């Protein structure tokens, strides 16, 4: 019950309360450039959600198995070369950024090839966005958040397991999709409006984004409210 509640809270927190775009400002570039039409926004959003889930899965596995101090795979490999007590203390976290960005880039390539070969309709709907996503900050941000919940925690029992990490990946992507689709809907209407010349393009998009961010601030505190209501304290 506690576990399910935790997953639920991580999910709504990633999707709504601390929305990746409107609260953490990651993935702003596609938010401004790809949000002209609703169908393109849906394609971009699903591509990001898809890649984010895979990237979180990979980064969670690499962090727990290889990078963190005392990780099983590193200890096992190092056990061949040094004394067992030294092998357990190897800390590879300094390599994490390089490893993550490499993992993201290669998984995007693989996913693109796979989808193009086996699911042509799916490729048509969001395949063109896949190469763009490699340098999307939202993906790396999701990986870093997962890392901070594995390595950054003081008590090892609080470290996130794969379920929590995946909840963050899937619903973080959903939050991105929600934000970019709302934005695209507004921008389709804006086409018909008489906007002052200097505001055309990115400026009005940013101001609309500001108003959206204000609306999303209304979700603040929903997570602790739900926790209090369900746990009864």
């Amino acid at each position, binding site marked *: 019950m506690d576990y399910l509640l935790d997953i639920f809270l991580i999910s709504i927190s990633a999707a709504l309360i601390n929305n990746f775009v409107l609260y953490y400002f990651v993935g702003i570039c596609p938010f401004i450039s790809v949000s002209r039409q609703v169908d393109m926004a849906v394609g971009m959003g699903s591509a990001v959600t898809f890649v984010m889930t895979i990237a979180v899965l990979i980064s969670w596995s690499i962090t727990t198995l290889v990078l963190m101090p005392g990780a099983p795979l590193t200890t096992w490999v190092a056990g061949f070369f040094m004394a067992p007590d030294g092998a357990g203390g190897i800390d590879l976290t300094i390599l994490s950024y390089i490893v993550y960005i490499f993992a993201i880039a290669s998984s995007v390539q693989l996913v693109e090839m796979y989808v193009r070969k086996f699911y042509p309709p799916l490729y048509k709907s969001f395949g063109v966005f896949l190469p763009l996503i490699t340098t999307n900050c939202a993906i790396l941000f999701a990986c870093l958040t997962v890392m901070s919940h594995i390595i950054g925690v003081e008590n090892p029992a609080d470290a996130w397991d794969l379920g929590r990490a995946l909840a963050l990946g899937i619903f973080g992507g959903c939050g991105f999709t929600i934000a970019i689709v709302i934005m695209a809907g507004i921008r389709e209407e804006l086409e018909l409006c008489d906007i002052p*010349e200097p505001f055309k393009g990115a400026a009005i998009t940013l101001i609309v984004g500001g108003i959206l*961010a204000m609306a999303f601030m209304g979700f603040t505190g929903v997570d602790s409210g739900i926790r209090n209501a369900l746990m009864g304290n």
Partner: protein
Amino acid sequence: MNDNPTPLERFIQGVLPENPVYRQLLGLCPTLAVTNNVKSALTMATAVGAVLLSANIIISLIRNLLRPHLRIVVFTLTIAAFVTIVDRVLAAYMYSMSKTLGPYIPLIIVNCIIICRCEVVAARQPVTAAAADAVGQAAGFGLALISIAVIRELLGAGTLAGLQVMPAAWPRWVIMVLPPGAFLTFGLLLALVNWITALRRNKQGQEG
């Protein structure tokens, strides 16, 4: 801009005429995320500048060894290595600042400004040109970050870099230091820059 600008011209181009934030709309994540006070904006701009300069120099040195299809991978890995260094340095010497900036320091890896400059300049030009371009772009980026941070901190907290500037009775516009303030401030400043550019272009058009 002529075809073969001197290093000084490259520097000046980066600061205003081709400002990475206002003109090219690149690197918006840190622009919006860390500009709620001047100190973190300055630190961020310095960090991006250091990474940009080192990456541009390295890429420019190895530009003849680059293979077209592996180019982007090499750029990204070089940048990631320098970002790791900057991240460790910040954590060692400015621990509280490194905590405040949090994930936005590693996010420099995917900052489009750096990849764009590596691709456009460093992969084609000698070291001096690449370095001058990097310094110019970094200065332009810093200028943009600080212009936003000054407005947000002044209106949101009544301070500048932690010093009280506004009278004590100033009703703090807390919204300015919260996420919506970033979008609004940057949107308005961008419109202002567009407006001034259009005015100047009209004037030049009338004279010429």
